[in-house]
């Protein structure tokens, strides 16, 4: 007992509410600016010039998913080292949010792909497939947590998936540098060959900042909820073990 939030802590911090609210407003502003303020692209170079505006949420969703997978990695590593409930809550939160943002990327991406490339997916592209695999690992972890008995041994297995899956994050990030097939390369960094219009970069960064705030808010709420869940389970267990407590 006492491993998780006590009975008195029945409300997550108000900070989480503010973060979700501000993040949500930021996302709405990003969509508005991306649709109506960001410049047009050269229609002779783009098959679907209006669809490019998907980038203002698609890319921030991808970056935010990397944050979530990092939380998952830290939680998995912490679980292996300490076997603490605090680390396990990070695994739970990281996998939930990694799946959330990963699904966002792999749905918006193919929609954009259909418009711009004429195909929703390319099985030969490294970045597409490593990111798809990353999201599949998050899905596996979420489903395993819900279907398997909650013992240390199943947590060990799930955490190992979180640890190894994280290896795909740096591979996905540099995929277009080491092997570019179809997915565009890194554009936020200015080089001789790449770069973004300042307005486009500004809106994209606003999108990322907004989603990061949303991510932090969701993480706080999720972490608190899993803590309450564990606390409720502890209480039930104590009641069952108490003499005459059936």
């Amino acid at each position, binding site marked *: 007992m006492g491993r998780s939030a006590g*009975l008195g802590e*029945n409300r*997550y911090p108000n900070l989480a509410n503010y973060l*979700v609210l501000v993040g*949500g407003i930021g*996302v*709405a502003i990003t*969509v508005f600016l991306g*649709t109506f303020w960001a410049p047009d692209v050269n*229609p002779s170079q783009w*098959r*679907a*010039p*209006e*669809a*490019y*505006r*998907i980038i203002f*949420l*698609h890319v921030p*969703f991808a970056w935010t998913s990397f944050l979530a997978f990092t939380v998952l990695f830290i939680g998995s590593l912490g679980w292996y080292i300490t076997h603490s409930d605090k680390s396990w809550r990070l695994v739970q939160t990281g996998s939930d949010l990694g799946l*959330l943002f990963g*699904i*966002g990327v792999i*749905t*918006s991406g193919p*929609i*954009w792909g*259909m*418009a*711009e490339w004429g195909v929703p997916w390319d099985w030969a592209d490294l970045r597409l497939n490593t990111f798809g695999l990353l999201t599949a690992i998050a899905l596996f972890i979420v489903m395993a947590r819900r279907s398997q008995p909650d013992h240390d041994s199943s947590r060990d297995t799930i955490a190992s998936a979180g640890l190894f899956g994280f290896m795909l994050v740096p591979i996905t990030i540099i995929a277009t540098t080491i092997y570019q097939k179809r997915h565009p390369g890194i554009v936020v960094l200015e080089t001789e060959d790449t770069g973004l219009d300042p307005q486009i970069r500004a809106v994209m960064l606003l999108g990322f900042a907004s989603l990061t705030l*949303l991510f932090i808010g*969701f993480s706080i*709420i*999720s972490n608190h*909820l899993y803590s*309450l*869940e564990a*606390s*409720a389970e502890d*209480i*039930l267990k104590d*009641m069952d073990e*108490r003499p*005459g*407590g059936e």
Partner: protein
Amino acid sequence: MSGFYHLLLADSILIGILVIYGRWVLLRHRSLEDFRTSIIQIQPLPPDEGEA
């Protein structure tokens, strides 16, 4: 407006999944609150050590 409907669909899905997750988290919180309240109510009273 080439790709406009794709833009609309993609943005709707992205915002939609954020809203759905937010609602799910809030509903879980409420159901957990109700569950905890019911646990507190049915917890047996500790034995009175002063009784003969």
